[in-house]
């Protein structure tokens, strides 16, 4: 992933420093490389295959891997597993990214406003977060899916709406620390409005912890979607996600173990890579925490 490249303002030594530390971290680089490969495969792979993900072939059901031109075999309807796996990976990655962006928008805004405003506003806003924390969220996501149908957009929003709480807490505590700094005082003395200070001076300085948390939210969102899919409330057939593929594979695992094995491996590899990259980013961007869990 080119997260570091995207967020790197030129000539800032903190980021150059972090980049150097990150590149020295072998597990993080390995995680990032796997993610790049997976993302490329998910983006381009489906166009390179001779089979479509929803192409039913009654003459080629339950084919084992490496037979009949199907690299990873076929399922009960004769659909090519590799094609479905690549499309499923694409859907899962998209859900991970978009849900995280949703949670990012809500969480950063909420946390930055609460931290910057302080006092009463802060207290009320954070108390709301506390209350939301103690809610059985998965139930609300399930209710949402049941009530309004399982649209992809709704999945994005529902998962994003669940994942923003921690983000807002992180952002708030950082903002509280940042607003004491001299450059914020200088901006205020120069006559900037509060909104402009938050946008131009606070939020850019929050990037470090936010980037770290983003790299850990994406796998959490992918996991949440696959959980919904497993319960039959996520992505609907013939569309696939890693979760639906695993759920389907688990049903037929004695007949066709490859249907469970390959999606599981891709799922675990994806989540593992994100977590390794996230841990590496944390060590690189937040040197104080380097004594903590690896």
């Amino acid at each position, binding site marked *: 992933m080119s997260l570091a490249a995207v967020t790197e303002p030129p000539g800032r030594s903190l980021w150059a420093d972090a980049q150097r530390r990150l590149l020295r971290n072998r597990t993080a680089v390995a995680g990032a490389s796997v993610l790049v490969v997976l993302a490329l495969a998910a983006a381009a792979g489906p166009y390179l295959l001779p089979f479509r993900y929803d192409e039913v072939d009654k003459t080629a059901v339950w084919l084992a891997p490496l037979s009949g031109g199907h690299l990873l075999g076929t399922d009960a309807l004769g659909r090519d597993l590799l094609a479905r796996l690549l499309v499923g990976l694409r859907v899962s990655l998209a859900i991970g990214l978009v849900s995280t962006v949703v949670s990012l928008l809500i969480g950063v805004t909420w946390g930055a406003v609460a931290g910057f405003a302080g006092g009463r506003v802060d207290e009320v806003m954070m108390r709301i977060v506390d*209350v939301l*924390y*103690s*809610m*059985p*969220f*998965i*139930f*609300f996501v*399930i*209710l*949402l899916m*049941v*009530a*309004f149908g399982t649209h992809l957009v709704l999945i994005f929003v529902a998962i994003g709406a669940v994942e923003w709480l921690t983000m807002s807490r992180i952002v708030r505590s950082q903002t509280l620390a940042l607003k004491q700094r001299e450059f914020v005082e200088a901006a205020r003395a120069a006559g900037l409005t509060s909104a402009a200070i938050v946008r131009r001076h606070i939020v850019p300085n929050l990037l470090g912890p936010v980037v770290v948390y983003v790299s850990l939210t994406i*796998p959490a969102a992918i*996991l949440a979607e*696959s*959980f919904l899919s*497993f*319960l*039959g*409330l996520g992505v609907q057939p013939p569309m696939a996600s890693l*979760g639906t593929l*695993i*759920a389907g*594979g*688990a049903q037929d*695992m*004695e007949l066709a*173990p490859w249907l*469970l094995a390959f999606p*599981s491996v891709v*799922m*675990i590899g994806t*989540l*593992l890579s994100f*977590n*390794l990259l996230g841990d590496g980013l944390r060590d690189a961007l937040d040197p104080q925490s380097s*004594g*903590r*869990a*690896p």
Partner: protein
Amino acid sequence: MLRFLARRLLVAVPTLLLVITLAFFMMRAAPGGPFDTDRRLSPEIEKNVLARYGLDRPLGEQYVTYVAGVARGDLGPSLKYRDKTVLQILKENYLVSLVLGLSAMVIGSLAGVGLGVLAALKRDGALDRGAMALAVLGVCIPTFVTAPLLVLLFASTLGWLPSAGWNGGALANLILPVLVLALPQVAVISRLTRAGMIESLRSNHVRTARAKGLSGSRIVLRHAMRPAVLPVVSYLGPATAALITGSLVVERIFNLPGLGKFFVLSALQRDYTVVMGMVIIYAALILLLNLIADLVQAALDPRVKLS
């Protein structure tokens, strides 16, 4: 202490009310009703059935009636299981979920704390690396992957354990589901413990204890572990939520007669009262465990003030 408890209970009431309100209106916003899936009812009968459950009243009135009922401890009758109240359904099925969740919590905590402490003591050793690799993997392998894999290995291939079913709570039937539920908890808790232990082993009070010549085991158990398990204690609330989520999947995979299976099914069938009852019970459970976590934390750490 009493003031703290009173305050927390006062906060819990609006939280629960918010949960009830959200769930109530989300459920009602869903298209369809509890009596749709049946053979088409004649208009008069449908009117009577709706009137019987008060579903013909304005939504606001239904909401007030429901909340008043909950305040009296009455969760109403089930709309699908015609002769049962929601409380009866909860009572008949909670035991399986409770045994499952509690065992996973206890095993997860013990194994997690033990593993974390050992890993911190032998930092960068083989055990530490192994434990932390396991911890990362444990977070990355979803329960619905571990469950079928373990079933494939221990039930289908080796034939040591039954692949599904409750069988009156026989130990052999419990092992796999509890293992699947506990594994992610072991991963998170061992990581938290290890991080806490590493910090605590460096702290002044542990150095003092060492300088006084206390035995190694006494230093670890009495002095180092106490602050080290604090993050684990505060994880109790989220752990409960995670276990509840996990139990939805695990009860389904292992075909266990617990509460988990009712939720999704009842939501799909628009059994409003059963869904609401479960949301309330689970929300109360999470609130309760967060409260217990705070109390334990205060007992372990004299710096924490209950206010």
